[in-house]
């Protein structure tokens, strides 16, 4: 039996408008003010069938600098937005595979360029597919726009290792969203994932362990209601809305999902993503580690 899904507006979120249902998306397929964006881990998924009118934003090719370990710069973001026909006023609706893991990652990168007029489709691609909704293979083409993004702002939602070191020294809050085994150092990598070369296992001192997928109903990929999320993050992990919080994982993708939950669904005022994450910290000479 399909799980009962509480309506988004009845789940008690601080910013419920950032989450849209599959029904909402189906009703806005022709809306010129809305651009639907699929972002997946599996490179064949979008091409094999996507929501009508949806464009693809690939996390490796479109969002990352192809040489340095960094995200694209303003010029690249302007070109991307122009290519997918997005203006500064367009509502961008993300969805994707793996419970919107990569969709949240793309949404977080968009925020670095000030495009926070975003939504995430609750339940992601799997829910749309399970509901038997239409998928098409035609790639839409939209008239290019003249998007003029601000220079990327790495201060509001992103932190680097020196900031994390200071954050730790000040005893501020961190959330490690990796698996418990990665957190306690018995694994250097996610279960069933390759070892990415981290030389030390464990976690950043003081971090609370809250695996990212706890925020999601495993049955249908929808986000849990606010009271259950509060129980996980505030009651369970001691992370409260007025805390200055840093989230991290392995390379900053899983933690983007938690960043979205804390910032939008629970309304935490200061949440930043450390995308250097364990692939940097676990190799950083002299960095403090706990197990």
């Amino acid at each position: 039996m399909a799980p009962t899904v509480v309506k988004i507006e009845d789940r008690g979120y601080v910013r419920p408008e950032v989450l849209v249902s599959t029904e909402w998306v189906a009703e806005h397929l022709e809306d010129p003010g809305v651009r639907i964006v699929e972002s997946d881990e599996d490179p064949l998924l979008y091409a094999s069938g996507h929501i009508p009118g949806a464009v693809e934003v690939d996390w490796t090719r479109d969002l990352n600098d192809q040489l340095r370990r960094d995200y694209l710069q303003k010029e690249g973001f302007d070109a991307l937005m122009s290519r997918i026909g997005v203006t500064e006023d367009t509502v961008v609706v993300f969805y994707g595979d793996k419970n919107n893991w990569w969709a949240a990652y793309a949404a977080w990168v968009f925020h670095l360029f000030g495009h926070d007029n975003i939504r995430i489709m609750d339940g992601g691609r799997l829910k749309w597919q399970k509901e038997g909704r239409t998928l098409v293979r035609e790639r839409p083409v939209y008239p290019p726009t003249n998007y003029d993004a601000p220079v990327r702002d790495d201060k509001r939602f992103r932190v680097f290792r020196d900031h994390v070191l200071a954050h730790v020294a000040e005893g501020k809050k961190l959330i490690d969203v990796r698996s418990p085994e990665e957190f306690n150092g018995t694994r250097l990598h996610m279960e069933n994932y390759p070892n990415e070369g981290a030389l030390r296992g464990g976690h950043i001192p003081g971090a609370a362990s809250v695996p990212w997928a706890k925020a999601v109903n495993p049955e249908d990929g929808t986000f849990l209601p606010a009271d259950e999320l509060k129980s996980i993050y505030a009651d369970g992990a001691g992370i409260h809305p007025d805390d200055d919080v840093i989230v991290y994982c392995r390379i900053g993708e899983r933690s983007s999902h938690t960043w979205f939950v804390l910032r939008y669904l629970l309304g935490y005022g200061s949440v930043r993503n450390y995308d250097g994450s364990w692939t940097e910290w676990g190799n950083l000479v002299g960095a403090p580690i706990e197990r």
Partner: protein
Amino acid sequence: MPAALREVLDDLALFPDRADRIEALIDIGSDYQNFSAEQVPRDERLRVPGCESEVFFLAIDRPGGGKEYRFAVDNPQGISAMALAAILQRASGSSREDIAAIPEDLVYRIFGNELSMGKSLGLNNMLRVLKLA
């Protein structure tokens, strides 16, 4: 390397454009037919490790020599796994020497190197279980 796999690589080489190659792989994946539980038992011992697409693998000795390779892919979204299953199953009946000669980087030759680490592991493990069978 088995001639059937060499042929796949040669065919894919005709598509230097990534989008065209993806379309070709989707076409290959769309030909894939999943196996029933009778044909490939969903036994944990047959599960391909690290593959989130719920893939099970069975190799059966063929009377005339070689093995028949069967990959069962249970995740309807596992389109990459289905494509690779369809490709690897073409190696059925190949000699041990040919199987051993399948290059370790076959997955990257097929899909390109822009796979996530998790996706790479799952697909590479499909190749590994076949080579170890």
